[in-house]
């Protein structure tokens, strides 16, 4: 049994490299729809796409509206679906709205040459040099629908090595912006989306090609607790997208909050349901930003440099996630000897802290997350309980993004994951990125990702992205 366990451990680095090269989620996030609408450059909102600058963050949180937006800023005037005066006579007539005058579509294409090195159980080095031309294409749609509604959608097309195609709805959501009360305070979104629980570190808004897999792709499920990364489950530490209802807002320009209620993490359930349990997961986050531009774009009393990626600010936040999987379908697991079991994640909780520091051209940010899973092991046939144990894991990362000059920016990230299985070594990775904006909407990147547990496991990705 010990020998088998070791063999599994030896295979983990290889599995991780394969995951990073072939299975890792790489999602895009620049939306040129807004460049057209406002006739403005990508760099109004992005330090280097898809990473948002403080103004872009405010634009996003404002429901895709400029801070204190005036109609004159919108260079593609919307199609009126009713004069504003109908507001006064509602519900005698339909409440007025508008829609984008052009079909609000944008395309993002990514091509990558992935050079990967790893070694198998016998120590033999395996090298891949893979042209992924294209790696994916994203179709975006985003905009506003009158004064209080906005929307965001993304469909991703990917080619698979076997000649097939994957198409997925990454985002599809409707937002209600400033629904009532003070402006920016009460906003709602419904649909499938990246929760604002991850604001500032979700892959969609990172300048790097790789996401923070130690946060989003760790599987806590295993006979002794989770051992590594797995995109397809069983179970994940945090869902990078959710089918959920979220409320969020900004108070006093600098306090950000979000609370959400959504489908449980893990695989879907029977009868084409997206959750195998009727119970829903909850999440919440509270942040405060000191200095710099307000989270709603407010600049009262603040002097900001003309270089819109620069400011001096600190943002700190606390986040939590909770789910009850006691009514969910159990996961299939096997022990070191191949014996099959069923396992439920009866209760799972995550608590974490986020911090982001801007000083001139440097943005240093990171997250520390502690996870707890109450795992119930059962007989595969009778589902009789064999054992219930509580496992914990800790993940954290720190990332430094630096603007050397606007077209040339670099990033360095360290990730550390103490997995739930106590005998499995801690996962440590280093991710280094050099990005070059060939044009405002064309970007080339070289990204090096190394598994620090084994010097032969690394990937070197050369990526070309463009958006239009």
């Amino acid at each position, binding site marked *: 049994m010990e020998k088998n366990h070791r063999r599994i451990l030896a295979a983990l680095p290889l599995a991780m490299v394969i995951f990073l090269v072939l299975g890792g989620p790489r999602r895009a996030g620049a939306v040129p729809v807004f460049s057209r609408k406002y006739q403005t450059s990508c760099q109004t909102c992005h330090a280097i796409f898809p990473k948002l600058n403080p103004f872009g963050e405010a634009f996003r949180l404002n429901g895709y509206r400029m801070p204190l937006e*005036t*109609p*004159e800023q919108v260079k593609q005037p919307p*199609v*009126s*679906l*009713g*004069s*504003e*005066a*109908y507001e*006064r*006579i509602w519900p005698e*007539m*339909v409440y*007025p709205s508008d829609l984008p005058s052009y079909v609000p579509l944008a395309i993002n294409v990514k091509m990558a040459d992935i050079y990967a090195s790893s070694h198998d159980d016998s120590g033999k080095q395996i090298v891949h040099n893979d042209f992924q031309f294209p790696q994916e294409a994203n179709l975006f749609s985003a905009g506003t629908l009158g004064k209080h509604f906005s929307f965001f959608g993304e469909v991703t097309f990917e080619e698979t090595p076997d000649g097939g195609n994957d198409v997925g709805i990454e985002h599809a959501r409707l937002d209600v912006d400033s629904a009532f009360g003070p402006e920016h305070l009460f906003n709602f979104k419904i649909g499938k989306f990246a929760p604002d629980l991850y604001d500032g570190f979700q892959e969609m808004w990172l300048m790097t090609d790789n996401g923070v897999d130690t946060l989003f792709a760790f599987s806590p499920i295993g006979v002794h607790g989770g051992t590594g990364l797995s995109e397809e489950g069983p179970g994940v530490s945090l869902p990078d997208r959710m089918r959920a209802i979220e409320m969020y807002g900004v108070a006093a320009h600098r306090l950000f909050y979000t609370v959400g209620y959504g489908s449980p993490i893990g695989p879907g359930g029977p009868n084409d349901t997206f959750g195998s349990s009727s119970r829903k997961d909850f999440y919440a986050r509270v942040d405060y930003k000191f200095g710099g531009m307000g989270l709603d774009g407010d600049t009262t009393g603040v002097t900001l440099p003309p270089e819109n990626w620069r400011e001096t600010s600190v943002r700190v936040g606390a986040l939590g996630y909770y789910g009850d999987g006691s009514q969910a379908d159990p996961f299939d697991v096997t022990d070191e000897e191949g014996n099959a079991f069923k396992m439920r994640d009866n209760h799972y909780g995550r608590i974490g802290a986020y911090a982001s520091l801007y000083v001139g051209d440097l943005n240093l940010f990171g997250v520390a997350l502690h996870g707890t899973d109450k795992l119930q092991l059962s007989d595969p046939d009778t589902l009789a309980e064999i054992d219930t144990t509580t496992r914990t894991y800790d993940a954290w990362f720190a990332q430094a993004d630096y603007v050397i000059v606007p077209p040339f920016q670099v990033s360095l990230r360290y990730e550390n994951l103490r997995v739930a299985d106590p005998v499995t070594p801690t996962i440590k990775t280093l991710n280094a990125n050099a990005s070059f904006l060939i044009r405002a909407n064309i970007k080339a990147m070289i990204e090096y990702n190394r598994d620090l547990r084994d010097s032969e496991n690394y990937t070197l990705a050369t990526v070309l992205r463009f958006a239009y």
Partner: protein
Amino acid sequence: MKKILIALTAAAATLPLSAGDIHGKLACKGAKDCAEAVVYVAAIPGKTFPAPAAHAKMNQLNMTFVPHVLPVQVGTTVDFLNSDAVLHNVFTPDACAGKFNLGTWPKGQSKSYTFTKECNATLLCKVHPEMEAFVVAVPTPYFAAVHGDGSYQIADVPDGAYTVKVWHPKMKAKEKPAKVAGPTELDFELSR
């Protein structure tokens, strides 16, 4: 426009000979221009003006109201002509214009309404909710629509002391005192 000029001329004929004008420029902060503003002399205590006999006209053409802003003197009857091949309607939600609803009528026909009170009336078409226009009914015959460059001129204003007001569909209304003695310059700055 021609009828407005006739009305203005008729009103001017009843005024003292020592008439000047009020002219100036408007700046609209945060807007492309001030083209839809109306500048007018507010009600003059103790003075009334007869309702103009001539009708003003607002057209419904290519599914828009033309003009978008129509200033008239209180008492003016406005004829709403449908020049489109589709049915149009005109109504207003504003109490100062009696919340009138003129029904629907086909191409080539018109319906009328007399604005008996000072009013900034929003005009809408129930058949086409995106259509919108304004009739600005002012208490004196001394008014002017502002040009695209922000300039305006109210002609033939008798010498005296007045309050001059500005209305704009998107901006906050503003007023200023004016002492007219011959040509008098009066500028405004509007904001949202």
